[in-house]
Protein backbone atom coordinates (compact mmCIF):
# COMPACT_ATOMS: atom_id res chain seq x y z
CA UNK A 1 0.00 0.00 0.00
CA UNK A 2 1.19 3.53 -0.74
CA UNK A 3 0.45 6.05 1.97
CA UNK A 4 0.05 9.21 -0.12
CA UNK A 5 -1.70 7.65 -3.10
CA UNK A 6 -4.02 5.35 -1.18
CA UNK A 7 -4.68 7.02 2.18
CA UNK A 8 -3.89 10.75 2.39
CA UNK A 9 -6.75 13.03 1.23
CA UNK A 10 -9.26 10.16 1.01
CA UNK A 11 -12.82 10.61 2.23
CA UNK A 12 -13.62 9.40 5.76
CA UNK A 13 -16.91 7.62 6.39
CA UNK A 14 -18.22 6.82 9.86
CA UNK A 15 -20.13 3.77 11.07
CA UNK A 16 -23.32 5.03 9.39
CA UNK A 17 -21.41 5.71 6.15
CA UNK A 18 -21.84 9.44 6.76
CA UNK A 19 -19.00 11.62 5.48
CA UNK A 20 -16.86 13.12 8.25
CA UNK A 21 -14.17 14.93 6.32
CA UNK A 22 -10.99 13.80 4.63
CA UNK A 23 -7.64 12.43 5.73
CA UNK A 24 -6.03 15.83 6.09
CA UNK A 25 -2.93 14.58 7.89
CA UNK A 26 -1.27 11.44 9.20
CA UNK A 27 0.82 10.99 12.33
CA UNK A 28 3.79 8.67 12.30
CA UNK A 29 5.32 7.41 15.53
CA UNK A 30 9.10 7.11 15.32
CA UNK A 31 10.89 4.79 17.76
CA UNK A 32 14.58 4.56 18.56
CA UNK A 33 15.13 1.32 16.72
CA UNK A 34 11.61 0.05 16.09
CA UNK A 35 9.85 0.22 12.75
CA UNK A 36 7.93 3.51 12.34
CA UNK A 37 4.16 3.12 12.40
CA UNK A 38 1.21 5.28 11.41
CA UNK A 39 -0.78 5.88 14.58
CA UNK A 40 -3.40 8.54 13.82
CA UNK A 41 -5.45 10.20 11.12
CA UNK A 42 -5.80 13.97 11.56
CA UNK A 43 -8.94 15.75 10.36
CA UNK A 44 -9.39 19.40 9.54
CA UNK A 45 -8.30 22.68 10.99
CA UNK A 46 -4.79 24.05 11.04
CA UNK A 47 -3.27 20.75 9.88
CA UNK A 48 -4.89 21.18 6.49
CA UNK A 49 -3.88 24.83 6.05
CA UNK A 50 -0.36 24.14 7.25
CA UNK A 51 0.07 22.03 4.14
CA UNK A 52 -0.55 25.05 1.91
CA UNK A 53 1.72 27.41 3.85
CA UNK A 54 2.76 27.68 7.51
CA UNK A 55 1.27 31.19 7.59
CA UNK A 56 -2.14 29.77 6.63
CA UNK A 57 -1.81 27.31 9.51
CA UNK A 58 -1.12 30.13 11.99
CA UNK A 59 -4.03 32.15 10.60
CA UNK A 60 -6.37 29.19 10.90
CA UNK A 61 -5.33 28.67 14.55
CA UNK A 62 -5.86 32.33 15.39
CA UNK A 63 -9.25 32.46 13.66
CA UNK A 64 -10.58 29.38 15.42
CA UNK A 65 -9.75 30.98 18.76
CA UNK A 66 -12.40 33.67 18.36
CA UNK A 67 -14.90 32.08 16.03
CA UNK A 68 -16.49 28.67 15.65
CA UNK A 69 -16.65 25.57 17.82
CA UNK A 70 -14.12 25.53 20.64
CA UNK A 71 -11.57 22.73 20.74
CA UNK A 72 -8.24 22.51 22.50
CA UNK A 73 -6.72 19.72 20.48
CA UNK A 74 -6.81 18.75 16.84
CA UNK A 75 -9.10 15.91 15.82
CA UNK A 76 -7.15 12.66 15.84
CA UNK A 77 -8.57 9.26 15.04
CA UNK A 78 -6.49 6.20 15.93
CA UNK A 79 -5.55 4.05 12.96
CA UNK A 80 -6.91 1.03 14.82
CA UNK A 81 -10.44 2.30 14.15
CA UNK A 82 -10.02 1.92 10.39
CA UNK A 83 -12.26 -0.83 9.06
CA UNK A 84 -11.40 -0.71 5.38
CA UNK A 85 -9.18 1.52 3.29
CA UNK A 86 -10.29 1.30 -0.31
CA UNK A 87 -12.11 3.91 -2.38
CA UNK A 88 -12.95 5.63 0.93
CA UNK A 89 -11.62 5.11 4.43
CA UNK A 90 -14.35 3.49 6.50
CA UNK A 91 -14.08 3.97 10.25
CA UNK A 92 -15.59 2.19 13.20
CA UNK A 93 -16.52 5.41 14.99
CA UNK A 94 -19.49 7.70 15.45
CA UNK A 95 -18.77 10.87 13.47
CA UNK A 96 -20.19 13.15 16.17
CA UNK A 97 -18.02 11.72 18.95
CA UNK A 98 -14.71 12.32 17.18
CA UNK A 99 -15.09 16.08 16.81
CA UNK A 100 -14.49 15.79 13.07
CA UNK A 101 -17.87 17.29 12.25
CA UNK A 102 -17.90 19.94 14.98
CA UNK A 103 -17.96 22.68 12.36
CA UNK A 104 -20.81 21.07 10.46
CA UNK A 105 -22.89 20.89 13.65
CA UNK A 106 -21.85 24.35 14.78
CA UNK A 107 -22.88 25.96 11.49
CA UNK A 108 -26.11 23.97 11.40
CA UNK A 109 -26.92 25.03 14.94
CA UNK A 110 -25.78 28.65 14.84
CA UNK A 111 -26.71 29.68 11.31
CA UNK A 112 -28.69 27.26 9.17
CA UNK A 113 -31.35 26.34 11.73
CA UNK A 114 -32.21 30.01 12.18
CA UNK A 115 -33.26 30.26 8.54
CA UNK A 116 -36.84 29.15 7.90
CA UNK A 117 -37.25 25.95 5.93
CA UNK A 118 -33.94 24.43 6.91
CA UNK A 119 -35.73 21.17 7.67
CA UNK A 120 -34.62 21.01 11.24
CA UNK A 121 -38.15 21.55 12.58
CA UNK A 122 -39.44 18.51 10.67
CA UNK A 123 -36.59 16.44 12.03
CA UNK A 124 -37.61 17.46 15.54
CA UNK A 125 -41.22 16.43 14.93
CA UNK A 126 -40.10 13.05 13.76
CA UNK A 127 -38.04 12.20 16.80
Amino acid at each position, binding site marked *: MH*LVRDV*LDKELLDREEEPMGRVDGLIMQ*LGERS*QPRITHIVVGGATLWE*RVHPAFGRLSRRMSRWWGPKRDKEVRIPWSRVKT*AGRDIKLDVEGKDTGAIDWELWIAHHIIEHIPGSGHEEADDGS
Partner: protein
Amino acid sequence: MEVKIELLLGAKVRDVNGEKVGRIEEIRVDRSDNALLVEAYLIGASAVVDRLSAWTLVRPIKGLLKSRRIYSLYDVPWQDMDLTDPRHPVLRTAKSDLHHAR
Protein backbone atom coordinates in the same frame (compact mmCIF):
# COMPACT_ATOMS: atom_id res chain seq x y z
CA MET B 1 8.72 11.03 18.44
CA GLU B 2 5.83 12.13 16.27
CA VAL B 3 6.22 13.08 12.63
CA LYS B 4 3.55 14.64 10.41
CA ILE B 5 3.50 12.68 7.19
CA GLU B 6 1.85 15.43 5.16
CA LEU B 7 4.71 17.81 5.97
CA LEU B 8 7.38 15.19 5.35
CA LEU B 9 6.16 15.00 1.79
CA GLY B 10 8.46 16.87 -0.53
CA ALA B 11 11.25 17.24 2.05
CA LYS B 12 14.73 17.32 0.49
CA VAL B 13 16.88 14.37 1.50
CA ARG B 14 20.66 14.42 1.77
CA ASP B 15 22.89 11.43 2.18
CA VAL B 16 25.43 10.81 4.92
CA ASN B 17 28.04 12.88 3.04
CA GLY B 18 25.66 15.80 2.55
CA GLU B 19 25.04 15.00 -1.09
CA LYS B 20 21.55 15.74 -2.45
CA VAL B 21 19.44 12.67 -3.10
CA GLY B 22 15.99 14.02 -3.92
CA ARG B 23 12.63 14.60 -2.29
CA ILE B 24 10.45 12.18 -0.38
CA GLU B 25 7.48 11.66 -2.68
CA GLU B 26 5.75 8.58 -1.36
CA ILE B 27 5.81 6.20 1.59
CA ARG B 28 5.34 2.49 1.28
CA VAL B 29 3.48 0.91 4.17
CA ASP B 30 2.38 -2.52 5.16
CA ARG B 31 -1.05 -3.02 6.64
CA SER B 32 -1.00 -5.92 9.05
CA ASP B 33 -3.46 -6.60 11.86
CA ASN B 34 -4.59 -3.13 12.86
CA ALA B 35 -1.19 -1.53 12.48
CA LEU B 36 0.23 0.43 9.60
CA LEU B 37 3.99 -0.07 9.46
CA VAL B 38 6.28 2.10 7.34
CA GLU B 39 8.51 -0.01 5.13
CA ALA B 40 10.26 2.44 2.86
CA TYR B 41 10.51 6.03 1.69
CA LEU B 42 10.35 6.52 -2.05
CA ILE B 43 12.45 9.24 -3.68
CA GLY B 44 12.56 10.40 -7.30
CA ALA B 45 10.46 11.36 -10.30
CA SER B 46 9.18 7.86 -10.75
CA ALA B 47 7.62 7.99 -7.29
CA VAL B 48 5.65 11.07 -8.32
CA VAL B 49 4.32 9.36 -11.41
CA ASP B 50 3.41 6.40 -9.23
CA ARG B 51 1.66 8.65 -6.73
CA LEU B 52 -0.40 10.28 -9.47
CA SER B 53 -1.06 6.83 -10.90
CA ALA B 54 -0.09 8.35 -14.21
CA TRP B 55 1.95 5.68 -15.99
CA THR B 56 -0.64 5.23 -18.71
CA LEU B 57 -0.26 8.90 -19.51
CA VAL B 58 3.53 9.13 -19.14
CA ARG B 59 4.56 5.93 -20.95
CA PRO B 60 3.47 6.97 -24.47
CA ILE B 61 5.25 10.32 -24.24
CA LYS B 62 8.39 9.21 -22.42
CA GLY B 63 10.33 9.54 -25.68
CA LEU B 64 9.46 13.25 -25.67
CA LEU B 65 10.82 13.65 -22.16
CA LYS B 66 14.23 12.64 -23.55
CA SER B 67 15.47 11.48 -20.25
CA ARG B 68 15.66 8.39 -18.18
CA ARG B 69 15.18 10.54 -15.07
CA ILE B 70 11.46 9.85 -15.21
CA TYR B 71 12.37 6.29 -14.28
CA SER B 72 14.61 7.25 -11.36
CA LEU B 73 13.44 5.84 -8.09
CA TYR B 74 15.19 5.25 -4.80
CA ASP B 75 13.47 2.88 -2.47
CA VAL B 76 14.96 3.72 0.94
CA PRO B 77 14.23 1.13 3.65
CA TRP B 78 13.06 2.68 6.92
CA GLN B 79 16.25 1.63 8.70
CA ASP B 80 18.32 3.85 6.37
CA MET B 81 16.40 7.10 6.98
CA ASP B 82 17.23 9.42 9.84
CA LEU B 83 14.22 11.61 10.63
CA THR B 84 15.48 13.22 13.83
CA ASP B 85 14.89 16.56 12.11
CA PRO B 86 11.83 15.88 9.91
CA ARG B 87 12.42 19.02 7.87
CA HIS B 88 15.88 17.86 6.87
CA PRO B 89 15.88 14.09 6.51
CA VAL B 90 19.30 12.48 6.21
CA LEU B 91 20.25 9.07 4.90
CA ARG B 92 22.28 6.77 7.12
CA THR B 93 24.13 5.54 4.05
CA ALA B 94 25.84 7.09 1.05
CA LYS B 95 23.90 7.87 -2.11
CA SER B 96 26.12 5.50 -4.07
CA ASP B 97 25.03 2.63 -1.86
CA LEU B 98 21.37 3.16 -2.72
CA HIS B 99 20.10 0.91 -5.41
CA HIS B 100 17.85 2.17 -8.16
CA ALA B 101 14.59 0.35 -7.72
CA ARG B 102 13.76 0.94 -11.37
